[in-house]
């Protein structure tokens, strides 16, 4: 397993480096293009540097708490996780800001869609490979150093241990805490990158659109718009760095959920009639990592295949091709590996119903579920299908009906994915128990490298379009970048489906681990069963409150975007009013001021939502105890999945409904329908790009924080203390 893991990480990071060099080797274009690209680079660099500085303060606090209350190993793992996530985000953003201008220039030089697509995908692949590579590198280091070298994975160590300070009652399985620390590190960075980047990008986007496009009548990405550089910076910090960290966190979350679950199950079954053997334990912990490694290698093969051959002029087909190739290779490689890996094992005693195939079949189920969820997302958000066309058609009757129809579309879109998820959970559980469910989550994200590459290519193409527009390049260039950007919008919606689906599956495994951790030593009792009593008033109350939390979280996020966007609108209006020369093209607008407004807004507003995610399980845990938090997790998970699907798909439908009209339907640009559709799109923007993607991180942060802290608040909480007086 180690060999495959190392090979995969080396291959992924090596190819990322090669692709990075190839991107850098491309010509950056004219002086004007380079000047615009430089402004975007500087804005993105400055924001991410400031953001990481702010996160560092909070990360140090979490690190200290982990080191004191849990263990220094968990604290170190937390740092490794945060570093991996931050590094992947930084590298992806850096590459994207170098690639954007080169994509524009490739389109300028060749006027070939295929050639331009190749450069855009090269840039995106660096982010994808960095996500896959760094996620596995960090996890490999944590498992190897703490699990193997320091012995936390040894069977005798996979038992409940006391806190190193000797605080009575705080007991947990060290290995589960260490890997959870790693996951928490990834999640914290992902949360800040997603929330901060999301607020940044939408504030800039809305500011640019509301004043520049709607009030002043200037086209998208026009250099006279003061917010246009901020808008392009936002694409990089939100849609590249934010997306990369988000999917890295999802990937790690899925892996961790399996490792923690196996560790808990090993401990729980140790005293039972059919205990897990040491060999079984090792294999069940190794298989997710092996699966991840083979998935990563498949993606390396897929990406290399795409880059060495001549690209056609059909970007959608090319991108689908590389995704499908990587998915098929993953299925084949992991199937062979599963056959070899589990040969001779007594699979039935591990709770697997279809022999060696069980974990693999569950993962394949996850892959298929991911594809189906992606297709459902495409159905509801692409204007090739009825729901989005209906949103566009409703725009003929005005903005109110655009919004109503978009909401209906988003709500309708929820049932399909949840039916798929429900079926997947049942089937995966039938094949492989809760471990099977965790494997389904891993399967769903096993080719995350390609998913992120495809998703990142979108904002790079979008930025290239912006640079082409600002540099006033030939219309052929802009048509090429617009074409690439349009495909990117659909792939982004599909990617979100994968992130949400995997979050739901991983959350279930983490939730099972939570119940094990809550039980502590009792989990090893022969009569212990994994039951959450929903009739318990504390659990039920927790579920009710938990269901409300994603709404509070989303409301705060939308408010944050609105606040930052308002400041941007005021600034852009003021610049136009102060200096009419901006509109006549005689004077350049103050781009820097808008970049600073977006940056300051995002940095100011991102803390509260992130703190809600981290602190709510702790606060409720110390007040009401573990049963309440159990309910809280269930409620939050269910509510957040629905809300995430709804926001992502409604936002996508509004966006593409507008694009459908812009392609000439219902009067095209300038029509009443278009005006209504623009309003719908503006409403949907913060939903799909800020709220939706942040919700799946919320689920996992809350799950991991609860898992790490449950042994403490199960022992020390106000509710138990008060009721002890009443008894």
């Amino acid at each position: 397993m180690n060999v495959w893991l190392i090979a995969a990480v080396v291959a992924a990071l090596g190819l990322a480096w090669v692709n990075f060099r190839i991107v850098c080797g491309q010509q950056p274009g004219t002086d004007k293009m380079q000047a615009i690209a430089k402004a975007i680079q500087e804005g993105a660099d400055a924001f991410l540097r400031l953001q990481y500085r702010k996160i560092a303060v909070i990360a140090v606090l979490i690190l200290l708490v982990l080191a004191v209350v849990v263990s220094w190993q968990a604290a170190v793992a937390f740092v490794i996780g945060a570093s991996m996530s931050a590094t992947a985000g930084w590298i992806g953003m850096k590459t994207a800001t170098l690639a954007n201008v080169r994509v524009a220039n490739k389109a300028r030089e060749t006027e070939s869609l295929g050639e331009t697509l190749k450069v855009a995908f090269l840039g995106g692949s660096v982010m994808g490979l960095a996500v896959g590579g760094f996620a596995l590198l960090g996890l490999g280091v944590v498992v190897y150093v703490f699990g193997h070298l320091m012995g936390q994975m040894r069977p005798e160590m996979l038992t409940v241990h006391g806190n190193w300070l000797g605080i009575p009652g705080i007991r947990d399985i060290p290995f589960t805490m260490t890997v959870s620390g790693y996951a928490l590190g990834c999640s914290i960075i992902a949360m800040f990158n997603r929330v901060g980047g999301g607020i940044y990008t939408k504030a800039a986007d809305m500011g640019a659109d509301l004043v520049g496009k709607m009030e002043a009548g200037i086209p998208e990405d026009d250099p006279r718009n003061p917010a246009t550089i901020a808008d392009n910076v936002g694409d990089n910090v939100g849609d590249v760095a934010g997306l990369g960290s988000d999917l890295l966190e999802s990937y790690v979350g899925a892996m961790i959920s399996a490792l923690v679950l196996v560790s808990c199950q090993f401990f729980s079954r140790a005293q039972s009639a059919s205990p897990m053997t040491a060999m079984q334990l090792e294999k069940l912990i190794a298989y997710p990592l092996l699966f991840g490694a083979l998935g990563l290698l498949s993606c390396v093969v897929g990406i290399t295949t795409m880059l060495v051959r001549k690209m056609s002029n059909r970007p959608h087909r090319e991108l689908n091709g590389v995704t499908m190739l990587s998915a098929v290779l993953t299925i084949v490689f992991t199937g062979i590996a599963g056959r070899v890996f589990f040969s001779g094992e007594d699979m039935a005693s591990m709770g697997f119903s279809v022999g060696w195939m069980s974990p693999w079949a569950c993962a394949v189920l996850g892959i298929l579920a991911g594809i189906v969820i992606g297709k459902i997302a495409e159905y509801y958000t692409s204007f090739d299908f009825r729901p989005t066309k209906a949103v566009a058609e409703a725009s003929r009757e005005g903005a109110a009906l655009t919004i109503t129809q978009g909401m209906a579309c988003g709500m309708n879109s929820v049932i399909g994915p949840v039916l798929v998820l429900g079926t997947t959970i049942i089937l995966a559980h039938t094949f492989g128990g809760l471990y099977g469910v965790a494997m389904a989550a891993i399967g769903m994200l096993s080719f995350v490298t390609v998913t992120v590459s495809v998703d990142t290519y979108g904002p790079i193409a979008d930025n290239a379009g912006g640079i082409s527009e600002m540099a006033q390049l030939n219309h052929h260039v802009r048509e090429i970048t617009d074409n690439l950007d349009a495909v990117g919008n659909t792939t982004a919606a599909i990617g979100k489906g994968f992130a949400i689906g995997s979050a739901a599956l991983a959350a279930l495994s983490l939730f099972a681990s939570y119940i094990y951790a809550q039980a502590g030593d009792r989990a090893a009792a022969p009569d212990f069963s994994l039951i959450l009593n929903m009739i318990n008033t504390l659990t039920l109350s927790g579920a009710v409150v938990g269901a409300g939390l994603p709404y509070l979280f989303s409301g705060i996020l939308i408010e944050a975007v609105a606040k930052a966007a308002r400041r941007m609108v005021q600034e852009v209006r003021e610049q136009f009013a102060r200096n009419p020369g901006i509109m006549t093209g005689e004077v350049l607008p103050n781009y820097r001021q808008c970049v600073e407004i977006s940056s300051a807004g995002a940095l100011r507003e991102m803390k509260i939502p992130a703190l809600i995610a981290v602190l709510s399980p702790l606060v409720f845990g110390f007040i009401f105890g573990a049963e309440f938090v159990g309910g809280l997790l269930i409620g939050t998970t269910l509510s957040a999945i629905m809300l995430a699907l709804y926001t992502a798909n409604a936002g996508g439908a509004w966006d593409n409904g507008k694009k459908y009209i812009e392609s000439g339907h219902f009067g095209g640009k300038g029509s009443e329908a278009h005006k209504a559709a623009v309003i719908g799109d503006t409403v949907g923007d913060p939903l799909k790009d800020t709220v939706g993607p942040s919700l799946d991180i919320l689920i996992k942060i809350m799950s991991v924080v609860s898992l790490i802290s449950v042994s403490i608040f199960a022992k020390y909480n106000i509710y138990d203390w008060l009721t002890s007086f009443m008894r």
Partner: protein
Amino acid sequence: MQTNLYLTVFPMEALIASQLSPEAFAAYMSVGARKGSAEALIFICINKENGPFCWEEARQKCVPHADGRPKRSFYLSIHRVLENLDLETMGDLYLVTRDGRCLALQRPGIGGGECQMPEDWDGIGLYKELCPVHPLVVSCRPPGDFGAYMTSPDNRVSVPSLLFADLRIVTTPEQSQVGSRVGTLFDRRMEHLKSCIEEVQQRRDKGAKIVDRSYASRFSYGLIKNGVYLCRGQQCLFWPMPSRDILKETAYDWGRSAEIF
């Protein structure tokens, strides 16, 4: 510094002397003067002083500022200007977008065949009158005939001169599916437009039927089909609108500002 004469015809009729070039004048009038203004504008360059206007005063007042900046505008008249100018002196016509970009339409000559019968004439014309009145009308007459009819003293409701554009007609949602960007003509006005067309087709004696009395704020350049016409009796000037393909090659930025691309 040269003084240019501009006849603004939309949204307001005025004769203006200015030391700005047509492009600078376009930017100044649409976005450059009043803070935060954004207004579409159509104007025609006037090649020679003519008509009953205060030319001497214009020559005296339209001089550079003390600091050397050119005089941007001196209004000679804001009422009944078009009818008092000689058609021969009309130069290029400029379509200015809300964000100040302008497209120059070249004037080929007076009384060309395009005025009388466009190649793609299908029996119905949709005309946006631009100056001195602003309604949107349908007519069974081709542009030249329509202009002559509207400016004939024999007609009870006539104007001395009329500037108008012919617009593309889409009367069914199916037509809009093939990429016809008909902007604000779509939907709510479609049924009404159809009934107006039916009425002028049934009553051949009816020279024109008003579809919309003003239609000023909703008019967009993307709707223009063949070009802009200026008629005075049998005289007709025509400024042809470039095709989409030509616009894409030669005026892509203007096309984006005009929401054509």
